[in-house]
């Protein structure tokens, strides 16, 4: 499964970005192979409606789960409808750290 993690940079060593729609990068970690792919977020500086647009983007990239700090209501509605589980990570670490916690099942799932 591909896990999308919002990031401040384009590598797994980058810090996790706590905002979803305006995150500079989305890092897609493959939980089976451990490989990753970075997507620059085209909506990071958008005027409005960036939450659902970013959600559509990661759905189109087949993300099965999302790890971020905060998620707006519209983005959450899209991800809920698509069955993408959302997890909160707000410990200030890197994408790698967040991914490790995800694998250890220690992240809080967004209700």
């Amino acid at each position, binding site marked *: 499964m591909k896990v999308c993690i919002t990031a401040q940079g384009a590598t797994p060593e980058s810090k996790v970005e706590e905002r979803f729609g305006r995150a500079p990068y989305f890092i897609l970690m493959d939980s089976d192979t451990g490989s990753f792919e970075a997507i620059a977020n085209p909506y990071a500086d958008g005027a409005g409606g960036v939450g659902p647009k970013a959600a559509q983007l990661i759905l189109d990239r087949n993300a099965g789960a999302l790890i971020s700090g905060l998620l707006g209501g519209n983005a959450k509605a*899209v991800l809920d409808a698509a069955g993408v589980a959302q997890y909160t990570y707000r410990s200030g670490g890197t994408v790698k750290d967040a991914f490790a916690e995800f694998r250890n099942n220690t992240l809080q799932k967004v209700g």
Partner: protein
Amino acid sequence: MKLAVASGKGGTGKSMVAANLAFTLAWTGEVTLIDCDVEEPNLHLFFPAPATTRDITIPVPSIVEFACKHCGKCAEFCQYGALTVLPDRVLFFPELCHSCGGCMLVCPKNAITEVSRRIGTLSTSVPMKGLQLITGTLDTGSPHAVPVIREAKTMAGHNTTVIIDTAPGTSCPVVEAVDGCDACILVTESTPFGLHDLQLAADVVSRLGIPAGVVINRSDGKDDQTIQFCTDHDLDIMMTIPFSREIAAIQNRGDLLTRARPEWQKDFCSIFFKCKALAGRER
């Protein structure tokens, strides 16, 4: 002539100036007073009267599910993120929609129609001879102030003096309310915040090409910086209202300064003539 009353800072006395100006002018001519502070309209408090109210709606898309092939073209087109297309359904977020109709145009299956969505109301009343009050009210939770303001402005008669009370601030609702007016009265107060926001508001109306003058309200007599700013920017100070407990008390009981103390009417008349001079037009 169409006049706007704006301020930048909230609570400086926009509605007070607009209401007293309308009340004064209605003795001698036809006045339409429009409350375009649609998130918090309050002019009706000064002019209680039976009103006729109707809904204001905007067109929004409605997806005909059986015709939709979930191709995603509408979501791709929408700049506001109002549509999200999943493999089996389309999600629509009405509060993000700007009613542009683009999704209908790009849909290859004609699977989108438009339906009306209520965003607020428009009330009209005639509280006194010569005065029509139009109040735009935005529904709680709706972010679409601009279409309500636009609708309220179209209700004004053509042969009357129109006075538009705007929202505080300098964002879209204020720009929409002030746009197209012949002159603008900027109401400020003797505080650093009053001056700071006056500067912003003056900048907005100047960029819109609307001539403006200033009313200093609740003046404590220490208006040097405001006067300096107005001098530097060629803004006429049309009236200074003193900081007065008596005036505050008149306001607080829902009365009008020009009704309780008619001697003030000449000052409001003079604002009107100064605005007319600014606009360079005959009434």
